[in-house]
């Protein structure tokens, strides 16, 4: 128990009539790389937002290094947030700032001088394989570059936990694999605990230490990648093989 960095305990969350999370349980141990897979609308993003405290559950607990963040006030929540780095699906770079200002945002906010912050930003950008982009604006970057800048921003303040929201969605396959490679590199070089959510199985197998399958607001199966690959659970099997036929039905389309 002592080693679990993230612990999600029986979390429920509804938006209006839409019961998105229906008792999610998930444990991530220190240094582990957890990948949560699941279809669109299965509640993956909502789960991730609970882990970093952007959303509060209707019931249940979210423990970060043993601290229940669902009961924290803003000030203490922001302290806990400093342990996190998050890469957003669309990178979510600040449009009004240059690349280096984006990367060093958390550092300048906590009082680092511009000169030094810029140096750190350049170093982090090199770590994700980008050079001579520090003075560009985010709008001048390609999708893959934006994601890498987003990753540089997420690691700039040396977080203990990295969250990846659909890291390979919306970029070409080669760039996607480069991002996978970076995620592995981050784990090896920075020794962080990470949680990624994705529906890209290729990516999941590459980066995961463990895989959890989220279906209809619950984790239906969790295991090492090879266990998931050889699963006997029909739901998981259908999802990982990407088959249209099986127990999971696509509304409005039927098998002829």
């Amino acid at each position: 128990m002592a080693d679990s960095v993230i612990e999600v305990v029986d979390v429920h969350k509804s938006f209006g009539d839409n019961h998105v999370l229906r008792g999610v349980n998930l444990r991530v141990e220190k240094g582990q790389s957890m990948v949560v897979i699941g279809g669109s609308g299965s509640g993956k993003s909502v789960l991730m937002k609970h882990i970093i405290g952007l959303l509060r559950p209707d019931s249940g607990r979210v423990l970060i290094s043993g601290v229940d963040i669902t009961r924290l006030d803003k000030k203490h929540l922001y302290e806990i947030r400093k342990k996190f780095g998050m890469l957003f699906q669309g990178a979510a770079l600040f449009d009004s700032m240059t690349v280096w200002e984006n990367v060093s945002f958390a550092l300048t906010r906590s009082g680092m001088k511009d000169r030094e912050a810029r140096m750190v930003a350049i170093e982090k950008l090199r770590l994700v394989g980008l050079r001579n982009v520090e003075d560009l604006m985010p709008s001048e970057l390609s999708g893959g570059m934006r994601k890498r800048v987003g990753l540089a921003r997420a690691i700039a303040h040396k977080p203990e936990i990295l969250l990846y929201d659909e890291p390979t969605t919306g970029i070409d396959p080669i760039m996607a694999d480069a991002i996978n490679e970076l995620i592995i590199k981050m784990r090896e070089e920075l020794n962080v605990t990470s949680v990624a959510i994705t529906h890209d199985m290729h990516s999941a197998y590459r980066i995961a230490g463990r895989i959890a399958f989220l279906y209809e607001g619950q984790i239906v199966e969790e295991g090492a990648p090879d266990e998931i690959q050889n699963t006997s659970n029909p739901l998981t099997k259908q999802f990982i093989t990407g088959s249209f036929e099986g127990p999971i039905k696509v509304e409005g389309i039927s098998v002829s």
Partner: protein
Amino acid sequence: MLRFLALLGGIILRFTETTGRVLLLLLQVIKMMLIPPLEIRNTFKQALEIGVRSVPVVLVTAVFTGMVLALQTYTGFKRFGAEALVGSVVALSMTREMGPVLTGLIVAGRAGAAMAAELGTMRVTEQIDALETLATDPVKYLIVPRFISGLVVMPMLTVVADMIGILGGYAIAVWYYHTSSILYWKRAWDYLELSDLYGGLIKASFFGGMIALICCYEGFYTEGGAEGVGKATTGAVVISFMTILISDYFLTAWLIA
């Protein structure tokens, strides 16, 4: 009848809900204003955006408003031989009413719309969530600087509008209608009290704060992608205009009393 009542109820519910949420945001903004560090760099940037960039439009609007006021009063007052009072009518109208209201409408249309669109875009592209994950309070970082800028910059712009409006009136009264230049200034000055100017500036500051608050609210709580940003922007401008015009009446009544 039942459908009408349901519609009416819906409108009232939405109105009270929105008002309540705007007030809650105001409380949050005030609380955040009191907690250091102050966002000085950001506040100056916003003041520049709201203030300096609005000056050209304010100038054009004010000068033509002053001109048309002089034109109307001169032709009207000539009928009973009071054309010498043009100066005081222009000065009083500009400082008490036209200056703050027109400047408010300009700032709402220009800077307010920009605020709603920018914050709305930040919301739908998850930039506001990103601020949260980087341990930065988005209300403090984004809304407080805009609110303070609105409060401070609007009176400044209004002073400019008042002066330029009075000069515009002068141009018409003196150069076009050839009334006495000395009389224009004397009448403008004689009947103008300091409280007229103050009253106008209090209104201006109130409008500035309300514009920033409403437009930030609309942007901050945007939902539904690009379409949502469009809706938020339109909503921000329309609600700001209504708020300015309606609150203007009540503020004036309060200031006169």
